[in-house]
């Protein structure tokens, strides 16, 4: 089931268009309020856009003068709020989709039991939703969406509220299930995008600012949000023959990536925090990039410490932190080798 999506909703400042190929899982990324949930609602037929169209496998579901009711779309939406039916038991909640699609009572029950077991909630089957904890409710909601066996599955932050033990298991389950399904998934976690999505679409301020295969976007992000999301540093500016010039004049030297930037056009320089060395004084001589910054935050990161300075980050050892006397407010220089910096043309402008 391939899908074409175009959504214009003036009131929410959303104007988005993208495609989903047959069997593909697309992750919608973006800051809070970017329009991710809005887009899913339009896909599911719960919101009528001002303009645009939704075409699923050639069939127009939403469009000028065309409107297919939600129940007739064979999409299933797991919304951000679990919204389990309070008057039905957990099992009946999960069986609701199969029943509605015409399954017999016994079949629906079997399907529901299967999916409940999959999300590790089989023992909750007879409870009422009010008797569930937040994470338990979230899991049941996931089971309910999966049990509906839709043509297009829409998942809005399915992993929110899950504990560290359940989250990997559910991720594994989703990975298995989504492999065969056409899915659009919203997430704020890089691991979910990496493991579940074939492609990502990055929204910001209601516009698509970047899209591509997951590996491409997360390793070579061209938008500030995607870089942040991937845990990479990103410096935006205009392309010079061998690097990127920031608006403040500072030039970051790097190696041109694909597509190669055209000098003078918008471009971004991307590098990993682990490639950044931290110095108290700007080092002289060698052809390296030196960025004067003020430390804003220190975050433990396993065996390392992530030193944040505004939008930029450097990963250093605990020993270096003590040695350099790093603390929020300290003025230091971030140094990165030219070979570690990739420079890309910026295809999308953040309008």
């Amino acid at each position, binding site marked *: 089931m391939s899908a074409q999506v175009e959504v214009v909703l003036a009131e929410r400042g959303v104007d988005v268009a993208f495609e989903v190929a047959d069997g593909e899982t697309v992750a919608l990324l973006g800051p809070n309020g970017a329009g991710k949930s809005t887009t899913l609602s339009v896909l599911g037929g719960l919101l009528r856009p001002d303009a645009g169209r939704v075409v699923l496998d050639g069939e127009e579901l939403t469009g000028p003068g065309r409107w297919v009711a939600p*129940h007739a779309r064979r999409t*299933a939406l797991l919304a951000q709020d679990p*919204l389990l039916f309070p008057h039905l038991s957990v099992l009946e909640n999960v069986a609701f989709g199969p029943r509605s699609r015409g399954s017999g009572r016994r079949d629906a029950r079997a399907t529901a039991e299967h999916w409940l077991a999959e999300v590790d909630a089989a023992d909750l089957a007879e409870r009422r939703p009010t008797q569930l904890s937040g994470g338990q409710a979230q899991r049941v909601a996931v089971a309910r969406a999966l049990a509906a066996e839709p043509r297009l599955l829409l998942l809005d932050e399915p992993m929110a509220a899950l504990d560290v033990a359940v989250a990997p298991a559910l991720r594994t389950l989703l990975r298995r299930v989504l492999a065969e399904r056409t899915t659009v998934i919203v997430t704020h976690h890089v691991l979910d995008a990496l493991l579940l999505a074939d492609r990502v679409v990055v929204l910001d301020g209601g516009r698509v600012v970047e899209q591509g295969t997951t590996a491409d976007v997360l390793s070579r992000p061209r938008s500030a949000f995607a870089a942040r999301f991937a845990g990479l540093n990103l410096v935006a500016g205009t392309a010079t023959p061998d690097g990127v010039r920031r608006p403040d004049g500072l030039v970051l030297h790097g190696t041109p990536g694909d597509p190669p930037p055209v000098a003078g056009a918008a471009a971004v320089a991307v590098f990993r925090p682990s490639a950044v060395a931290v110095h108290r004084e700007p080092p002289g001589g060698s052809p390296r990039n030196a960025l004067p910054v003020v430390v804003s935050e220190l975050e433990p990161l396993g065996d390392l410490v992530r030193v944040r300075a505004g939008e930029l980050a450097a990963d250093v050892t605990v020993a270096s932190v003590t040695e350099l006397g790093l603390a929020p407010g300290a003025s230091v220089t971030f140094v990165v080798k030219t070979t570690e910096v990739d420079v890309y043309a910026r295809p999308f402008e953040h309008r």
Partner: protein
Amino acid sequence: MSRARHVGLPRWLFGPALLAGAFVVLPVASMTTRIALGDFWSLVTSRAARSALVLSLETSSASTALCLLLGVPLATVLARGEGRWLGPLRSLVLLPLVLPPVVGGIALLSTFGRQGLLGGELEALGIRIAFTSVAVVLAQTFVSLPFLVISLEGALRTAGERYDVVAASLGARPTTVLRRVTLPLVLPGLASGAVLAFARSLGEFGATITFAGSLEGTTRTLPLLIYNLRVTDADAAVAMSLVLVAVAVLVIGLVRPRGAL
């Protein structure tokens, strides 16, 4: 659940609440002090009383059923439907509430009566409504319908559409949504509405006597009997009213589901 959340009510609230309770209960209680218990039993068990009681229960049940049959769709359309014509319709549904019941009876006569709007058609079909028990049910339905519709519509609005939307997105067609989600969720409101409609039907007098007349066994319901008795024997009327009240409280107490109303 006994360990439910405890927000607590403002203390001063109990003052007016108690006053309100007293204002309703006191008159009924003080009325009872007027009647002698001796006559009470013979009165209450008289043939006229029994036949009126049975008729009242039968017709009120029938009219409640009819109210549900007509009122649930109407309330749903009013609460969930779209269209400019819904506003006026919503006001019009209140008509039987404001109309003095006797005038309501006249209105029914002018529709279903022999010379009424539909009278000719009904006559041709061999259907005679006036002076029959059917007329009683229609009169009761006419005055009770707004109660059901308004309670239910309010409940539907308060409950909102969130769960309906979820159900639809899981593939439930509108009828399934209505049956399995919308209505179960507003069950308390539906029950309140049905109880209100039943209570109003049970106490109905004006429209009934105007449209259906008053004949023992056929159209003389308990309120009509009470009215009959009132002229000659006020105490008897009061005694019968108490029976009416007792029946209502009993039926409502038995029928209403937990937590509803």
